């Protein structure tokens, strides 16, 4: 088995583990972690597929895609965490506050 | 197997043994302070041996300098983080094993 196939299989199982945890657990933080794990799985599959040529340099286009993907998933995680913080510790803004703004 | 490769391999294995010792300490030591002690001391020393082992076989002098810079940054970073963790645990009142929590009479 070429190494890239092992990593691709690993990425597929990561995706499955992440997706099942996302659906299974109710706690929001755990869902965020699960989504990140799934994303890592997808990235692993992409980068593994870029390494299919037996010799020579790997395909740089999936690398660029994964790079973009990692940064975008960090922003999504940050936004999700901000929302979670707001849910748990948000200040109660009453209607009078809205009008005053 | 040149003597260089043998020495390098021996140093790498020695480094690995120190990492193993650090992990053992992490699992077996009774409280957070001794675990921090095991991790920072043993792991950093293990990393030092790995760094020396790698730099012996490095392709150029510049590469071995970079390896040592990596080791130095790890030592710096683990120094900062172990201080912070120990301080936070102390302030939170975590008791060293077999002694009273900080602030109370022994």
């Amino acid at each position: 088995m070429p190494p890239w196939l092992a990593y691709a299989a690993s990425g597929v199982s990561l995706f499955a583990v992440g997706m099942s945890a996302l659906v299974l657990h109710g706690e929001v933080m755990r869902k965020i972690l699960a989504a990140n794990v799934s994303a890592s799985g997808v990235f692993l599959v992409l980068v593994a597929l870029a390494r299919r040529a037996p010799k020579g340099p790997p395909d740089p286009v999936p690398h660029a895609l994964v790079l973009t993907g990692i940064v975008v998933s960090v922003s999504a995680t940050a936004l999700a965490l901000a929302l979670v913080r707001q849910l748990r510790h948000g200040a109660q803004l009453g209607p009078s506050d809205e009008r005053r703004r | 197997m040149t003597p260089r490769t043998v020495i390098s391999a021996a140093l790498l294995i020695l480094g690995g043994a120190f990492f193993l010792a650090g992990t053992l300490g992490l699992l077996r030591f009774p409280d957070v302070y001794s675990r921090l002690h095991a991790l920072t001391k043993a792991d950093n020393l293990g990393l030092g041996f790995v760094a020396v082992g790698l730099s012996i076989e490095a392709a150029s002098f510049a590469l071995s300098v970079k390896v040592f810079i990596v080791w130095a940054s790890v030592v710096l970073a683990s120094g900062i983080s172990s201080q912070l963790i120990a301080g936070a645990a102390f302030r939170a009142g975590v008791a060293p094993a077999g002694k009273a929590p900080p602030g109370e009479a022994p």
Partner: protein
Amino acid sequence: MIPPIDLLLATALPLIAWRVLATDELPTSVVLFIAFGLLSALAWARLDAPDVALVEAAVGTGLTGALLMSSLRSMERPRPPSPWRARAIALVAAAIAVALASVVALLPRGALGLGPAVLARSEESGVAQPVTAVLMNFRGHDTHLEMLVLLAASIGVLSIQHGTASHGVDTAPTSSVVMMLVELIVPALVVLAGYLVWRGSRAPGGAFQAGAILAGGAVLLLLTRRMAPLSLERQMVRMFLFAGPVLFFLVAAVPLGFGGDMLEYPRGWGGSLILGLESALTLSIATILTMFFPQGAPAPRRRG
């Protein structure tokens, strides 16, 4: 025969991921997630993807881990799911995994993809490093939109934080040892970030890694209270924040006025334009990533 380290990594990753998600205590999950990220970076390195490894280590693991840690206060009590539900979902997930794995296994084995096409034109792109060429030139539109996504996310985080109660930043009194070490490490981080941006044109590096490292340094300064939170009211902060996206938009739109396509770099200018763009992007990315942290933006003014 597959090298043992690859086999070890490929089996360790799903196992650790399972432990990350099956652990009841959230702090343990987060620490395991950071370890998972480091192993992923190793996997990228083994797959000859050093740029991805750098970004994963800096952004995916370092920053995401730090973000998760700073949100640990928001954890809920673990609610273990019913075993039957767990088994049903695990079965469906396993079926999906098998289907996906067989699809992947059926893909052509020796396919080279777009690699040769990129390598053939990389000289024209102005940079020698193929991944940077793809990111900043051949697929520059993706990076442009990615910057807008980052900007949108940071605006979202800022506006949400405006409504969140001031939580009292979790900075404990810091010892002089930590201060001294921080004073040593932050300048080194700035130099490293600059080096990565400059090196991105011929070796793994670039704006994202450099920006993430700068953000890490900024968070260190914030936590030791050496730096005030980044408020949008400060001119400098606004400039840094918008430098990257605005410059990118200008570079993309200007060729339209001269009869070219969007984001068409003039001949021979590719290298310098890309370097300038990457420097501006580094500043913006660093600012945005720092603002993602709750300590990165000032606490909202409470009313009444």
